[in-house]
């Protein structure tokens, strides 16, 4: 049986996790202090994902940019594809928290939404 030591990125607690792996499946997770840790370890071993946060240009707003995020986590290898799609996006003010900026970004099935009002 194989084991991997991981650090949970679910929240700033950063629990040290140990995932036991059999036939590339996680069979047990220890060291986590909440359910997020178990989910994270399972994903990190089989299909690592991240929430991507960035900003896009805004026209006519109080600030020149508005912060955005992928509403859910996306596969880690798609991070730069998401960033590339965001690069040339321009939105018109007003923008509110939760407004969809891009639907189905980089073919991930996940939307990019605004995270502040502008």
């Amino acid at each position, binding site marked *: 049986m194989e084991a991997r030591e991981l650090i949970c990125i679910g929240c700033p607690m950063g629990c040290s996790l140990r995932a036991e792996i059999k036939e590339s499946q996680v069979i047990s997770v220890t060291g986590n202090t909440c359910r997020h840790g178990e989910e994270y370890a399972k994903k990190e071993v089989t299909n690592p994902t991240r929430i991507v*946060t960035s900003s896009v240009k805004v026209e006519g707003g109080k600030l020149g940019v508005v912060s955005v995020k992928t509403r859910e986590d996306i596969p880690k290898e798609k991070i730069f594809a998401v960033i590339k799609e965001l690069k040339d996006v321009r939105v018109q003010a007003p923008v509110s928290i939760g407004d969809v900026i891009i639907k189905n970004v980089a073919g991930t099935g996940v939307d990019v939404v605004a995270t502040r009002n502008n």
Partner: protein
Amino acid sequence: MLHYDIVIVGGGPAGLAAAVSAKEHGVESILVLERDQELGGILNQCIHNGFGLHTFQEELTGPEYAGRFIEQAEKAQVAYKLNTMVLEISKDKVVTVMNGKEGMFEIQASAVILAMGCRERARGALNIPGYRPAGIYSAGTAQRLVNMEGFLPGRQVVILGSGDIGLIMARRMTLEGAKVHVVAELLPYSGGLKRNLVQCLDDFNIPLKLSHTVVDIDGKDRVKGVTIAKVDEGRKPISGTETYYPCDTLLLSCGLIPENELSQSLGVELNPVTSGPFVNECFETNVEGVFACGNVLHVHDLVDFVSKEAASAGKHAAAYVKYKGKHPAVVSKDIPIVPESGVRYTVPKTINPDRMDEKHTIRFRVDKVYKNCYISVYLGKERIIYKKRPIAAPGEMEEVIFHKELFQAVPDLSKITIKIEEA
């Protein structure tokens, strides 16, 4: 003169949580003073995720977390003034304030809550030799430029210091198309959270060099490169270990310092370890009716804990206003909490069993990395808490919880000791 029961200096996460809580506890007359053009404080530029898991059981970005508290404050009809700077607070709680619309004016407060936050340690405090070219920024300044103003301050980047903002900016600059060559950290361990080492450096193959520092900055008008060298145990650069990195930008993430100039002129006594005020379990400073919370009190890793602490400060400030400073339950003395081996400080500094809530969280930091240690609490000679920690590091705040009944069993207690005991 204007009068408010509670004046709160700072409209960031601490100020907002304190305001909402004070309102909930029955004080109507509250004024928040904020020097920026909007509420929310530093969270507005922290666009990364990871905020709010404790408070809202969901993962939010900084602006979203701030948004929740701004909404609560608006709903509670908390009064606030933006673009307004507090110049001075006198011992009798007259707050001298200035803004562009109303000029300079005074406000009489019954209680004051200090929630000014912290600022970054600047180059001048780091004694880095070399010229003073353009291209040297604190990590937080770069964060504001990228995330709020929409400018990328550089393309080839070296980061000194592995504080969380530096790690977050290593990722952010990378995503925006810059190349981050290295993060150098003077100490043998990182000052940031472990999760940020994973998701900000490891994910992007950015090297972290521990026990390294910048020994020279090259370039007269604009940064052309920096020289990094290994340091010995005394943190002195070791000759012959220098590496030159061509770059156009140096970001500094070398620690945060509570911003306490106002507190000092008010006569608030500061803890030299945290650079924040000494407070009792009500978050009240040595100046009666003056409370402190958030990063002005001690620098936090998690805003969730800031919100919790600040809500408690708001509640106690409300009680202070209600009881006019004379808490009816108090008969015994405040008991000092003494940090010993391994524990650098505690917040609060004292606790009063008559006045405390059913349970109270004591927060502190350790002085170095410990593995498989115990956090021990002694009442006199008796050890009442013995909490095992697989790992304890200075970059991650620790806590123990005191229950009121602990103290009822031991009257006439002269001190409480917290220490790290190695297994």
